[in-house]
């Protein structure tokens, strides 16, 4: 899923102060799972903004809504009636959600309330970690399903650097060494032999370095 964090309220206010009616729109998918943009957090932010403006005696209309997915048109239509009544949409979707809203509601300013961070997993309640960079050529099969692109600080593809200590990365001791994880995992599943195969350097042209990407599936088109 996409992991994000809420922007500071001052930054959000700086962007929306100029409008008199704000539609705060959450997304009940990835950003709900990372407890930052779902229905609860939408109510939290809308209430926080109301209080913030109340304190400044600035009367604004603040309405909240939450979509099941902010990046799919069928769901985006869910706020079609509310949008014309507001000056701006403050989105709690990831960057993709914000831009999808802008594509659909062409005459409306859309402001992001989140900083979109990474593709990751929920390790435990309240802890999310990055584990995929979307490189476009997944090689997890070689590495016991532990990604060296996302989880080795140096993105090494053929074994650890010399700095790994006690299972920790030399770049940051708070971070587990990706290669330590890879080796332990391959050992556990009895597939250490996978590492004898040379893995060529990552071809970054299939990643975001190759420019904006898209997937087209004729079989899925209407």
């Amino acid at each position, binding site marked *: 899923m996409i992991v994000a964090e809420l922007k500071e309220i001052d930054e959000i206010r700086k962007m929306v102060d100029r409008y008199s009616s704000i539609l705060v729109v959450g997304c009940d998918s990835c950003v709900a799972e990372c407890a930052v943009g779902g229905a*609860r957090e939408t*109510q*939290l932010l809308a*209430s*926080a903004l*109301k*209080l913030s403006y*109340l*304190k400044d005696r600035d009367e604004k209309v603040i309405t909240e809504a939450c979509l099941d997915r902010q990046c799919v048109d069928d769901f985006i239509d869910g706020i079609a009636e509310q949008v014309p009544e507001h000056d701006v949409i403050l989105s709690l979707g990831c960057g993709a959600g914000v831009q999808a809203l802008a594509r659909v509601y062409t005459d409306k300013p859309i402001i992001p309330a989140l900083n979109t961070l990474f593709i990751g997993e929920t390790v435990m309640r309240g802890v999310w970690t990055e584990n995929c960079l979307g490189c476009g050529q997944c090689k997890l099969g070689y590495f016991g399903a532990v990604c060296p692109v996302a989880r080795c600080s140096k993105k090494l593809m053929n074994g650890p650097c010399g700095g790994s200590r006690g299972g920790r990365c030399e770049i940051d001791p708070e971070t587990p060494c990706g290669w330590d994880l890879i080796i332990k995992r391959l050992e556990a599943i009895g597939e250490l032999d996978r590492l004898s195969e040379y893995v060529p350097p990552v071809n970054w042209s299939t990643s975001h370095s190759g420019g904006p990407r898209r997937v087209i599936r004729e079989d899925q088109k209407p």
Partner: protein
Amino acid sequence: MHRQNNKIVVFHCRNLRLFQDGERKEFSMAWPGLSLVSIPCSGKIEAHFLLKTLASGAQGVLVLACAEQACQYLEGSMRSRKRVEYARHWLEKLGIAPDRIEFVRLWPVSQQALEAHLEEFVLKLESLGALGTPEKV
């Protein structure tokens, strides 16, 4: 006694068994502006309820929870404490007195103890002034 018309919302865990039949109404009538909201466990409380309650016109919110070891659902009382802390942190960020939201473990668990706490809370809210006016922190 300070029982002015201060809009205060009290969320209380049902398992505290503060009120017998009819007592809740009687208690509320003695406190103009007070809303008593019974919840199945204080752990049901979330930060957005608390901020929303203030944004909807309440001047202060109390969350009454059971003692941590007494929580029927084991973690509820501990969770509600953390959530109240989070909501208070939000108020701080917004430049609003965090004391408008309080987490309370009544001892003894009685209406008298709640009354005593409310007396103090009302005084505190009065010293802060109404939400939306400059706070005299």
